[in-house]
C-alpha cells in the first residue's frame, strides 16, 4: 500500500466493507461499560492517521459496553466488539491475545492506544505480540511520508524527541487532552465477534474507584496546591475554588508525602504527569521535578507570595500575593462570572 500523502484524497473513497484490509486499529477503552473522553480522542486520532495513510480505522471494544457503535461518530469506520464479561477488567495477557488475533486477521499495521494506565500497561506487551515498533505518550499525529516518524516529550518535558518507527507494524499511545475529538461521522452498527481467550491467570479481588469527581489524569481543569498551604486543614479554599471551576484537585509531592492529601493527587516526576487545559498552582514553588508533571498543560496560572518563585518562569499568568487572600477572591470572581452566564 502506498502511504505517501499525495494519495490521501483519492484513497478516502476506499470502501471498508468490500475489503477486509483495515490498517489502523484503535482500542476503544471502556470503564464499567462506558467510554471515557480518552476513547473518543484515540478513535479520532486513529481516524486522522488512517486518512493520512489512505486506509480505514477500526475500533476494537473489549468487554460488555453500552452502545459501542457511537464510536462511529468520532471516525471509526467499523466497530468490533468482543463482549465477553471476562474482558470487563484488564488482564494484559487476555487483552494482548485478542488484539493480536484482530490485528492478524485484518492485516492491520498500526495499533493506537490511549496513554492511560490501561494503554500503558498494554503497549509493550502488544508491541512484542504483534512484532511492532512502539512509541508511547505522543501528542500529535505521526508523519507517514515514506518512513514513519513521531515526536514526544522526553527528559520530563525539557526536550522533544522525534522517533522513527522502522518495523512494518506500529503501536502508539496517545496522551490525553492532546487532540480535540470532533464528531466527523455517524454511529455505526457494531459487529459482535468471537475471540479465543487464553485462560486468565490474574484474579481480581477488589476494584476501588473514586466516585464523583473526574479522575485527575483526565481533567481539563486542575487546581493544585503545595506546601504554601501550611497544613491540610486549610484545603477548604482550594476545594471551593476547584468546585467552582469544575476542576480536579492536585498537589505537590511534599504535601502527599506528609499525608495532607491522598497520594493519587501527587503530580510531578515521581507522581503522575498531566496535560490539562488549565493548571492553577497555589503555594507551589515550581521545582523542576514538579514542573516535569505539569509543563504540558496548555495554560498555567501561578499564585505565590514570592515573586522569585521559579514557577513564574513556566507560567502564563501569575499573581504575586498571599494565597489565603487571593484564592478566595478568585473563587468569588469566578462565581460572579458564572452567574453572569
Amino acid at each position: 500500500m502506498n502511504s505517501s500523502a499525495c494519495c490521501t484524497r483519492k484513497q478516502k473513497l476506499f470502501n471498508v466493507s468490500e475489503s477486509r484490509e483495515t490498517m489502523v486499529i484503535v482500542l476503544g477503552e471502556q470503564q464499567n461499560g462506558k467510554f471515557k473522553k480518552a476513547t473518543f480522542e484515540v478513535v479520532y486520532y486513529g481516524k486522522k492517521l488512517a486518512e493520512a495513510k489512505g486506509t480505514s480505522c477500526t475500533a476494537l471494544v473489549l468487554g460488555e459496553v453500552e452502545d459501542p457503535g457511537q464510536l462511529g461518530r468520532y471516525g471509526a469506520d467499523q466497530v468490533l466488539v468482543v463482549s465477553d464479561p471476562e474482558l470487563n477488567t484488564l488482564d494484559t495477557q487476555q487483552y494482548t491475545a485478542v488484539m493480536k488475533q484482530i490485528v492478524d486477521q485484518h492485516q492491520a499495521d498500526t495499533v493506537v492506544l490511549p496513554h492511560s494506565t490501561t494503554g500503558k500497561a498494554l503497549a509493550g506487551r502488544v508491541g512484542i505480540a504483534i512484532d511492532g515498533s512502539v512509541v508511547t505518550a505522543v501528542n500529535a499525529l505521526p508523519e507517514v511520508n515514506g518512513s514513519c516518524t513521531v515526536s514526544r516529550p522526553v527528559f520530563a518535558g525539557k526536550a522533544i524527541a522525534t522517533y522513527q518507527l522502522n518495523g512494518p507494524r506500529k503501536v502508539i499511545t496517545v496522551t490525553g487532552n492532546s487532540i480535540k475529538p470532533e464528531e466527523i461521522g455517524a454511529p455505526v452498527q457494531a459487529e459482535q465477534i468471537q475471540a479465543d481467550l487464553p485462560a486468565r491467570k490474574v484474579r481480581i479481588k477488589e476494584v476501588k474507584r473514586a466516585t464523583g469527581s473526574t479522575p485527575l489524569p483526565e481533567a481539563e481543569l486542575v487546581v493544585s496546591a503545595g506546601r504554601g498551604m501550611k497544613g491540610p486543614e486549610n484545603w477548604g479554599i482550594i476545594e471551593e475554588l476547584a468546585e467552582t471551576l469544575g476542576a480536579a484537585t492536585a498537589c505537590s509531592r511534599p504535601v502527599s508525602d506528609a499525608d495532607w492529601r491522598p497520594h493519587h493527587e501527587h503530580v510531578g516526576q515521581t507522581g503522575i504527569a498531566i496535560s490539562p487545559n488549565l493548571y492553577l498552582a497555589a503555594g507551589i514553588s515550581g521545582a523542576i521535578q514538579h514542573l516535569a508533571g505539569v509543563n504540558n498543560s496548555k495554560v498555567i496560572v501561578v499564585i505565590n507570595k514570592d515573586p522569585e518563585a521559579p514557577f513564574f518562569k513556566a507560567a502564563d499568568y501569575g499573581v504575586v500575593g498571599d494565597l489565603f487572600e487571593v484564592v478566595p477572591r478568585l473563587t468569588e470572581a469566578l462565581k460572579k462570572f458564572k452567574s453572569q452566564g
Partner: protein
Amino acid sequence: MKILVAISKTPETTAKISFTPDNKAFNTDGVQYIMNPYDEWYALVRGLELKEANGGSVTVINVGPPANDVIIRKALAIGADDAVRVNAEPLSARFVAEQIANHAKEAGYDLIIFGKETIDYSGALVPGMVAELLDLPFFSFAHYLEVDGKTATVTRDIEGGEEIAEAELPIVVSAIKGMAEQRIPNMRGIMMAKRKPLNVTEPVGTQGDVEIVAYTLPPEKSAVKLVEPENMDELVSLLHEEAKVI
C-alpha cells in the same frame, strides 16, 4: 524466592538538557547519572524486603555500558546479592526487554520487579515487553506487593482508582511510589558490595526497530503576564477571553 530487579540509569533530575550540534544525540558532557528512582526506591527495596521475609536472593540486571557499574555497585550496596550487566548501549525498549527476558529464561525467577518507567525517556515499555516475551502475568503500576507461598497479591493503579488482584508466581511487576521506602546504603553495605559478583554478558539480537532521529527544545514560554492580587476579575476575564480555558 528468586527475585530479579531491573535497574536503569538516568540523568540526575536537575541535569542540564542539551544536544550535540547536529541535534541527533543527547549531550552527556558534565551530566551526572543516578539510578532511576522508581527502580532504586521502590522495585529494589521491595525485592529486598520480600527476600528478608521469605528467604531467597535478589539479583539486579542492567543493560548498559561499563560506566553503569557505579550504579550497579550502589544496588549491591543497598543489599542485592549479585548483578548482571548486559554489555550494550540500551537504544530501544525492545532490545533491553530481549536482554532481560533472555537472562530470566535461563535463570528462572519467581518475581521480576521493574520501576514504572525511566524518568528520562518515560517509555514505560520494558516491563510489559518482558512479561510478553516470558508469557507471564503483568501487574503494572503496583504500589503494594505481598507474597504468600506461591501466591502474590498486588494493588495497582487503574484508570480512576486501584485494583487488588492476585496471581500465582512467577509474575512481572512494575513499581510506583508507595511500594517501599528508599534505603540509603551504609558503610558496611558499600564495603560488601565490592566483593559481590557482577557478571558481564554480551547482548543477543539487534537494535533498531525504533530510533531517535532528532531532538528539539520546546518552544520558549512567553513571559508571564502578572495580574494584581486585588484584581481577580481581570484574571477571570483573561482566562475566558484570551486563554479561552474557562
